[in-house]
């Protein structure tokens, strides 16, 4: 089981205090560390942020996800982690990204928060598809998002 490919999808509540500027800096830092560490443990995935919540997909070997998730779990920058999905998968869908990012001014993020759309009501599958679709769209359009990603 330990080397099998798994996929994790979770949501959490942002607890980074302060201004947008400050939040932005923290997220930059999270992404920088994530990309380095994830690449080293062959983890791919994407992170989405919409001011209140994080949504993240991680793909990789069971044990590598387990280890990475334990680190993420102890991070004081978020709380109320809800695991939506953790299961074996056949293939990676985020293989280009050690940690793709969709920020809060993006269309995808707006879709998460669009009126009447409660993030906690979203299914893992839906988040997964949204993240995937928007990362690809951003890449095609050559938007600045890709540079961060």
């Amino acid at each position, binding site marked *: 089981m330990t080397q099998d490919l798994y996929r994790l999808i979770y949501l959490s509540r942002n607890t980074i205090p302060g201004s947008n500027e400050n939040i932005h800096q923290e997220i930059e830092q999270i992404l920088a560390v994530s990309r380095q560490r994830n690449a*080293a443990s062959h983890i791919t995935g994407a992170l989405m942020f919409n001011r209140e919540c994080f949504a993240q997909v991680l793909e990789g070997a069971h044990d590598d996800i387990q280890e990475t*998730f334990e680190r993420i779990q102890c991070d004081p920058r978020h709380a109320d982690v809800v*695991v939506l999905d953790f299961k074996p998968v056949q293939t990676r869908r985020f293989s280009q990204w050690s940690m793709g990012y969709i920020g809060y001014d993006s269309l995808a993020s707006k879709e998460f928060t669009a009126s009447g759309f409660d993030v906690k009501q979203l299914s893992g599958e839906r988040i997964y598809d949204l993240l995937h679709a928007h990362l690809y769209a951003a890449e095609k359009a050559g938007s600045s998002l890709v540079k961060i990603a």
Partner: protein
Amino acid sequence: MTTARDINTAMDLPAIDSSCGLALIDHAGKMISVNPAFLKLFALPPDVQNKTFAELTGAMNPVATHFLLQAIDGEHGIVSKRTIVIDNKTLTAHIIELNQAQRLMMVESLPASLFPTPEINHPARTPGTASLINRSMLSKHIANWKPDRSGTVTPAMLMIGLDRFKRINETLGHDSGDQLLKFTAQRLLRVIRSDDIVAHFAGDQFAILQINQNQPVAATTMAERIAELLKRPFLVNGQQVNISASIGLAILYQDTESTTDLIKHAELALYDAKHNARGGYRRYEQSLQQSASEQHELEVNLRRALFLQEFTLFYQPQVRMHDKKIVGFEALIRWEKLGAGIISPLRFIPLAEDTREIHEIGQWVLQTACREAATWPENIQIAVNVSPVQFESNNLKQIVQAALAASGLAPQRLELEITEGLLIKNMANALDQLKEILTMGVSVALDDFGTGYSSLNYLSSFPFSKIKIDQSFVHRMHTDKSRTLIKAVIALGSALGIKTLAEGVETEEQFDYLARNGCEEIQGYLISKPVPAEQIPALIS
């Protein structure tokens, strides 16, 4: 090990100029002599003679202190080997027990690159519980503590117990349990300050000693953070696992007068937290001593009750409404303790479930009820309650089979009563076991219907022989809501071909209403209260 012994007698450690650190240590952990490399590896001052490692570095280097304490505390193996990472250096220690009083430790430093494993590359990651010190080592630490001159800081003990850990071990397996413990240890190591010390007590219990912090703020803040952190989901063997932790605090000079009581008081506070603040923390206070000893006494007494034959079964008749004939009895457990009187099942059954004593008690109830029922006329049934916990060891079928075989009771005369709670937790497994039991000819009734999460789903998922309408609805029969529910359950039962029995029937009025609406059986004081076995012949004749 002859070479080691030779070294011992001839050895002049300070003169050995090797890159390998060497130390001769007595059984209490005091250094007898060390070589220069040893001092360098652990950044120790030159004069270490007759001091323990904790005294030398104590708060400054807890990782190394854990490591060395473990090394000298190791059981009486001749050689043991341990590895840790300190300041990006991988240290391997070989400990050789030279004789009763002396150990020789050889410490080598290997460049980190020799170990390309993730553990070593990421020093924050630790191998889990094995790297933590144990209870006796923690006690030594506390005993070594000396008040700080300024007097503003004082040690605090946090005792952390994982809630329902045994249950996780039983349901998910020991491998998952071990992984959970490992991750718990890692989470704790991540939240502590570098001068805190984490210990792994028995099984599901951890302790953190805060040495140099302002109290009570540091301890309560840490307790809150840990409680929150351990509530976050874990990923174990391909699935998500949720647990929680209860925490007990004891702070020296604030809650507790002497260092020797610190562990004990933190444990009492943990005990209180587990019972009254699950998933949160409690601080030690004197009154806990009293209530904990009462609860403890109950636990001890409960453990002895079977042996002392303090349990008896009482039997309450179940009556068919149309001819008012007794068709069966429900077996009800009673605990009468000499000097303490009768202890309510509401009090001791949850405790027995917690301590797993329910397995033996449940088995005894089944055996006794079957044996008793075998002496009754053949058309009289016996109903026995089964706790959800009894399903967790996956051998309920065998226990039922054995009770039937020993008593000679026909399986058709035995009915197990289960509650909805069982189905909520692990429906698939519970249903599998129930189906097996059904194939033996035993029937299964759904008890307390209406009190829980009553769902049609349960009723259609299994061929129950009977639905028991909870007595609270019968007692509230004057309200529209209760009447509606009663009618609905009866209608549902008849639609699904399941018999309905109303519990707690006390008045003729209730009887008439139930009869009019098609309820088939009743149980309650109107017919008879639960009676001891001796009175049964008189009741059925």
